[in-house]
């Protein structure tokens, strides 16, 4: 699910460039030209098929099949019946659809500023001549390698309303902690907190790499001109960091719309549907309510939304992203 869409367009250009500076392929030893060409074709196929066959069978074909399933009524068992666009019409008129998208959106709105500002602050700090920098970076990165399920379970325990450590510590200060994931108002913030904890290190490493690519002379020049720390941050560092920022935002939005594992394990969409996000809804429709057709329609809807959001960002990047 690692999606590097931000680069996709640039990548295709790169691919073209790489072709033009191709190396002369080693001369095949075939006897005549046709034999040589056949041999070359077979060589290309031998290198390509090990990846092409699984990608066609397990990504492209299911993708097309999902479009077809979305036009049927199907409970995964009985033969599917054709219903045309009915699933889409149902989804679009059902207020629950708006709800699950809103819940997903509220996740993104809470999560993104938290990981970006947090990741940036840590990256800025680690970019100075700091002792023990490698160790500190390693500690901040540790949650990234942990699975979402473990993250969800650990935070369910930390934020346990009755005897979790967070509410216990709050109690020392006379604060009556909230019900966290058991409280409809606090369930989404709980998920956001756990998710930000996990992804902070990922964002930090990307921004740190961006910071290290900035020419220190530019910052020195700004300093000589009398620019203070904040001024240098906003006028020099952040504009030069915009490609890394762009990447973080594109990836976070793609992953944010697909949020599922941590929701499933922390709240299962509850309490009272307060954290029912789009993918949780797709899962429930398929495996709990036997509405595979409607689930496929919803997953296509989600894909189209992600695609649109990503394309809009790539189109809009010229306005603010500064590729040196």
């Amino acid at each position, binding site marked *: 699910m690692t999606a590097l869409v931000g680069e996709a367009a640039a990548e295709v250009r790169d691919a073209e460039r790489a072709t033009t500076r191709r190396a002369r392929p*080693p001369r095949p030893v075939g006897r005549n030209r046709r034999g040589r060409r056949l041999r070359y074709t077979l060589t290309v196929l031998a290198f390509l098929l*090990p*990846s092409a066959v699984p990608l066609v*069978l397990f990504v492209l074909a299911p*993708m097309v099949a999902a479009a077809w399933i979305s036009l049927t009524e199907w409970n995964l068992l009985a033969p599917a019946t054709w219903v045309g666009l009915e699933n889409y019409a149902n989804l679009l008129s059902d207020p629950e659809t708006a709800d699950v998208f809103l819940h997903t959106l509220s996740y993104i709105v809470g999560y993104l500023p938290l990981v970006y500002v947090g990741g940036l602050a840590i990256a800025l700090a680690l970019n100075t001549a700091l002792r023990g920098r490698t160790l500190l970076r390693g500690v901040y990165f540790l949650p990234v390698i942990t699975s979402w399920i473990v993250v969800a379970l650990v935070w369910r325990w930390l934020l346990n309303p009755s005897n979790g450590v967070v509410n216990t510590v709050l109690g020392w200060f006379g604060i009556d902690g909230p019900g966290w994931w058991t409280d409809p108002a606090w369930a989404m913030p709980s998920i956001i907190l756990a998710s930000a904890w996990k992804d902070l290190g990922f964002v930090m490493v990307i921004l740190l790499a961006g910071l290290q690519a900035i020419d220190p002379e530019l910052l020195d020049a700004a300093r000589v001109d009398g620019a203070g720390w904040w001024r240098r941050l906003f006028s020099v560092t952040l504009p030069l960091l915009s490609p*890394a920022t762009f990447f973080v935002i594109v990836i976070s939005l793609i992953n944010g719309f697909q949020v*599922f594992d941590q929701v499933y394990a922390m709240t299962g969409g509850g309490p009272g549907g307060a954290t029912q996000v789009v993918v949780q809804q797709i899962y429930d429709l398929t495996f709990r309510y036997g509405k595979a057709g409607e689930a496929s329609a919803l997953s296509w809807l989600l894909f189209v939304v992600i695609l649109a959001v990503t394309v809009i960002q790539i189109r809009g990047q010229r306005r603010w992203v500064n590729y040196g």
Partner: protein
Amino acid sequence: MAETTLAPTTARAGGIRRRTEAARAAGARSVLLHVVIVVGALAMFFPFYWTVVTSLTPGSGLSSTPSLIPADASLEAYQRLFADLPFARVVGNSLLLATVTTLAQLVTSATAAYAFSRLPFRGRTVVFGIYLATMMIPLQVLVVPLFAELRAWGLVDTYLGALLPTLAAAFGVFLLRQAMNQVPFELDEAAALDGAGHFRIFWTVILPNIRPALATLAVFAFMGSWNSFLWPLVVLRSPELQTLPVALAGLQGQYTTQWDIVMAGSVVSILPMLAVYLFAQKYVIQGVANTGLK
């Protein structure tokens, strides 16, 4: 952003006093920075510490919050985990799937990357574009038809069913092609002059030159499989075939208030990944950093 170098203007008239003041201010700021960043790191680390402490405190969560340093630490929760449940089997399942996925992705990504880097053919740009596009398709869109497809082949609730969709990933192709494009084409030409064909060049020239990228991919593929949840949840039904994340999610339902057992399971799930990470930290961080730089 610490003021390690002083602007040349301050070195002039009356500069000495001003310089020491600036240096002292910079020193104080540096100390403050260290304190903040270390406290932050401790806060980030605390959930891990708490997980371990809880797993060592029998009866955690039933009535009380464990103490920061367990008075009588015990491995009881781990014993119960492996005695009451097929947990050893679950760990074995995860190891098996992660290992096969990693090996398969190394092979399928390296060969495809070689074709995209070294074997010009008509329509190559378009094919590469399609490969990249598959990265954008969310797994959720594929789950229903994939499930139906593998059920038709009788592969639901089998290792093979869990493995097949993970054998190839466009991310790996992308990563390795990038690395192969950095290998000088003169090396292939020299090998070709010596009579080497594409398979020899791939094996003896290209692969040895992209070892760091292969390491990065290996770690990411292993991590992706080890931590993956949705597909194993859907395709593996019987308890003795489950993977760690799925079993852990189930554990929670089974032992709702027995946090020592749930946390012991979490520790077991973190440890192997931690070992891989400590071993290959450089490649993980480099891999993440590089994806953002382009």
